[in-house]
């Protein structure tokens, strides 16, 4: 459980702003901070990581205070059990993939974690390559693995996928979800992509002007529960085909591919790569025991 109360006066590109937020995150949850640029999302991550000091506040993680302004407790970034992934990967260019991971080891730490991470994010073939010979998605996988070397409790992801194309994003999202579950992490993600947020998060905090304006589970925050269909999934359009007087739209939902019959009027604004909600009524699906 992470409980954080953060106050900080920030100078942003558009003037000064007061960051005043309260977060309450259950252990093992993946939560997203969502909002326009300059509302303080990155500052919140940096304050939790101990890279930026708050004016006042408290950060309590599983009963341990990392920050308590009144009691003058302020753990250093090294004392906080945190993994941090940045948008721009921040890998050492002169080291191989494996060396980048090994560099993150603590003194005396068991090296087995390196093998485990290389296997879990599928870096076996790439482990002796230098970062500049890798694609953006591959580099971000290395950055993700490196953030996990010290077995953090909390994983902070600052728009880690925004520089990647749609296909690569979707793959990386799956890797993030895999490590999040496998290592029972509590993860805080900064993202602008609503499809990504609905796919990945248990809870979303919407921020404006340094304040939380809305909190809730991502589907109800973004769809506002406006559609009565009980059978709702978010997916990505991967194909649109014309068929007789209708169209067949193929949608990737998680690892499953579904096909939906649609009309011309429904597909005029639809392009491959778009995020869609696939909805049906609770009355239509049938259940078959497997």
């Amino acid at each position, binding site marked *: 459980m992470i409980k954080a109360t953060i106050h900080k006066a920030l100078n942003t590109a558009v003037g000064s702003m007061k960051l005043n937020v309260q977060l309450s995150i259950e252990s093992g949850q993946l939560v997203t901070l969502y909002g326009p640029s300059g509302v303080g999302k990155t500052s919140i991550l940096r304050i939790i990581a101990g890279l930026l000091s708050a004016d006042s506040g408290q950060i309590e993680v599983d009963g341990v205070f990392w920050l308590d302004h009144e009691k003058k407790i302020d753990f250093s970034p090294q004392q906080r059990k945190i993994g941090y992934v940045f948008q721009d990967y921040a890998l050492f260019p002169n080291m191989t993939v494996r060396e980048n991971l090994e560099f993150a080891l603590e003194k005396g730490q068991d090296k087995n974690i390196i093998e485990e991470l290389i296997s879990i994010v599928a870096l076996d073939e790439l482990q002796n390559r230098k970062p500049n010979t890798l694609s953006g998605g591959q580099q971000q996988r290395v950055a993700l693995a490196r953030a996990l070397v010290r077995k953090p409790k909390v994983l902070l992801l600052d728009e880690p996928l925004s520089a990647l194309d749609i296909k690569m994003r979707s793959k990386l999202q799956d890797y993030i979800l895999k490590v999040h579950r496998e290592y029972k992490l509590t993860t805080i993600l900064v993202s602008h992509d609503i499809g990504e947020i609905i796919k990945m998060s248990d809870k979303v905090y919407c921020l404006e002007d340094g304040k939380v304006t809305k909190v809730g589970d991502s589907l109800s925050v973004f769809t*506002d*529960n*406006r*559609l*009565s*269909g*009980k059978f709702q999934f978010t997916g990505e359009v991967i194909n649109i085909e014309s*068929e*007789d*007087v*209708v169209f067949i739209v193929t949608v990737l939902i998680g690892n499953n591919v579904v096909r939906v*019959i649609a*009309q011309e*009027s*429904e597909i005029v604004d639809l392009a491959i790569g778009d995020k869609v909600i696939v*909805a049906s*009524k*609770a*009355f*239509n699906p049938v259940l078959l025991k497997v």
Partner: protein
Amino acid sequence: MNVFSGHISDIQISKNLSMVSVQIDERIELKTILVETPNTASYLKKGSAVDVLFKETEVIISKGDPSFISIQNKIPAVIKKCDSGVLLSKILLNTAIGDIVAIVTTEILNALVLKENEEVIVMIKANEIMLSK
């Protein structure tokens, strides 16, 4: 998707289910059954503006007297246009609340000899209608 705007005129509730009536115009009311109640969906209250949504493939067309068919929603219509494909056909229907599109098999379109300007009854089952705020 067929979409019509209206106002909720009545709600009957039983445990987790609601039967919601939506008045589209003075004469036409569509009824839908939802796994939702006013406690779980805030828009479920009398007078609320909602959209009624149903898929073209769920629209049924009857040429004769449909009184003895177990379908809740029935709307008189005139066929405006038939667009025949190999297996499926698209029928554009003019009704008092606006145009409705139906997708049926080309085989049944031909068997019923559905033609332009013909008067028919359009039917939609209550469990095929979704509401959207």
